[in-house]
């Protein structure tokens, strides 16, 4: 009986060894891919970093207001973040490629899906980034215009503009990534519509006289009211 156990064991060991020997090259391939990938990802990170430095990406993101968000979240700077992101994505990609070599069927499909997902993720991040940039710019423009035109509560206007644009951009980004697509779109529609309706009602009822005056001035080319300033010519 002892011999049987030994021979079964030996056979099992042999099979294991055989199986192992069969799979070993593939594992080695994966390891090699991982190493190569690491090197490639590192190089890529360095290249991306220099490109971002060149286009003053930090500055841009500061303008976008993204930097402030990142510091608040105790995250590293935008350039750093992006470089690390690129590094990890690249390395992961290489590893996955290697894993594909292992030939595990179900995994391949998932890996393929992952690679297909990447561009959309990237697009969404871009939308978010430029959207933030635009929001900051436009909200500041609105603020300055309102201040110079002596509108009441210019900051309210500025913040409203910024909020609306951010909501819009977020919706677009989520839709791009495919996260709760319909929900987001509908929610955005409702929110946006509500804001507009609210503004319309507010303006319509509360600002009735103001609207009237505005139209009169524009259409009838100015009757001057008593308190009109005698503004000096600056030049």
């Amino acid at each position, binding site marked *: 009986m002892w011999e049987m156990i030994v021979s079964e064991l030996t056979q099992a060991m042999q099979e294991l060894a055989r199986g192992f020997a069969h799979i070993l090259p593939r594992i080695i391939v994966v390891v090699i891919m991982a190493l190569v990938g690491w090197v490639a990802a590192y190089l890529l990170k360095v290249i991306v970093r220099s490109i971002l430095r060149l286009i003053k990406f930090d500055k841009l993101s500061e303008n976008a207001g993204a930097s402030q968000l990142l510091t608040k979240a105790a995250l590293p700077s935008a350039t750093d973040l992006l470089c690390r992101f690129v590094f990890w994505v690249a390395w992961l990609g290489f590893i996955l490629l290697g894993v594909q070599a292992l030939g595990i069927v179900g995994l391949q499909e998932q890996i393929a899906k992952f690679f297909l997902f990447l561009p959309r993720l990237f697009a969404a991040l871009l939308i978010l980034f430029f959207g933030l940039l635009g929001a900051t710019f436009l909200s500041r423009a609105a603020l300055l215009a309102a201040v*110079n035109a002596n509108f009441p509560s210019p900051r309210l206007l500025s913040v409203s503009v910024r909020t609306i644009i951010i909501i819009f951009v977020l919706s677009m980004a989520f839709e791009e990534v495919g996260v709760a697509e319909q929900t987001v779109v509908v929610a955005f529609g409702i929110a946006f519509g509500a804001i507009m309706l609210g503004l319309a009602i507010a303006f319509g009822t509360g600002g009735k006289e103001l609207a009237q005056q505005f139209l009169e001035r524009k259409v009838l080319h100015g009757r001057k009211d008593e308190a009109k300033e005698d*503004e*000096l010519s*600056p030049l």
Partner: protein
Amino acid sequence: MAQESFLTDDFLGQLISVGEVDILVGVPTHNNAKTVGPIVETIQAGILKFFPRERAAIINADGGSRDGTPQLVESAAIGDAQSRSRQYALRTLRSITTEYASSPASGTALRTILAAAELLRAKACAVISPESTQITTDWLAALLRPAYADTFDLVLPTYRRHKFDGVLLTNLLYPMTRALYGLKIREPYALEYAFSGRLGSQFLAQNAWSEETARAGSEIQLTLASVTGDFRIGQTFLGTKKHVERRSADLVPAMRQTVGALFSSMGPNFSVWSGKTGSQPVPTTGTEQEFSLEPLRVNRKRLREMFSAGVAELASVFQSILSAPTLAELQRIAGLDEASFCYSGELWVKTVYEFAAAYHKSVISRDHIIQALAPLFRGRAFTFLTENRNGTAASVENNIEGLCVEFERMKPYLLKIWNGGE
């Protein structure tokens, strides 16, 4: 690769017909049918009266007018057919028009006029704005004669103005241009001026005609080009400039044209202005410029209110532009009541210089920087009006001189913050 010329074939054909001229008068327009007719008639009369034997042409650079402005300018021509002019004309007077773009850009308009002047080898050119409704034939002669006689390369006007007219000019443009470039030019932004063909050609060749310069205020650029290029600048006293009513909404566009152009000129010309200290007077023919003192109804209160509102609402924007002490000081005076409110010359100079440095570094969009300066300027205007409410012409001139000296005195501060070190 051959560059696309910005002169149309048709315009070039007209220039070929005109041939060499001695005098060229450029009129840049955009929908100015209400004002340009009498101006062009005055130009015609001035040429016939003071330059009857000289070959002359009027060039209209139009930015896509839809109200018949170009036709009004063309009607000033005197050709073989009987002209409308009552004055006898010894020779033909050409008046040609070209549409340089479908939307106005004053830099491109000036460039068109300069190109025409160079191709026609004009000895002297004048540029008359279509808003220059007060121009007379004597003004035209006073501007053109020194350039034509080769006494000066750039002839700028001076006027007798109301002491409260042109506050942006007296409190920012004049003192700052003077401090930067070392010349006491009263009207660096002029509605009418003249220059020699030599300066025109140089300016045309050297200037980098980018998108930005195409739109920005070209009037001040020519002034700056002649300062930096060592050309002879002269001033000539024209006469009284009547007070023109403007709306408050005009301030920001005006600032864009003038202050924006001034600030953007500082970067490329750093080597020129960084070395200059003090300022030299500019030779002036005719009387020195002076102020008139008729009473003028002015709403000063609104100025101060807009200043305070601006300081409050734009704090986030100012943080990117101004230094902490300056901003704090502004916030402090914004809280003062009307009686004790005072936007001192020193603080104003600091403000302007910090804005200039921020503009240079593009800390935020440059156009936003200019817009942000507007409410602060209003505060300064309030102080200026208050201080000079009962002032005589001499005392007003003294105050302005004092401000100029302040600008000159604090120039090292500007140099310090220019490239960093804030």
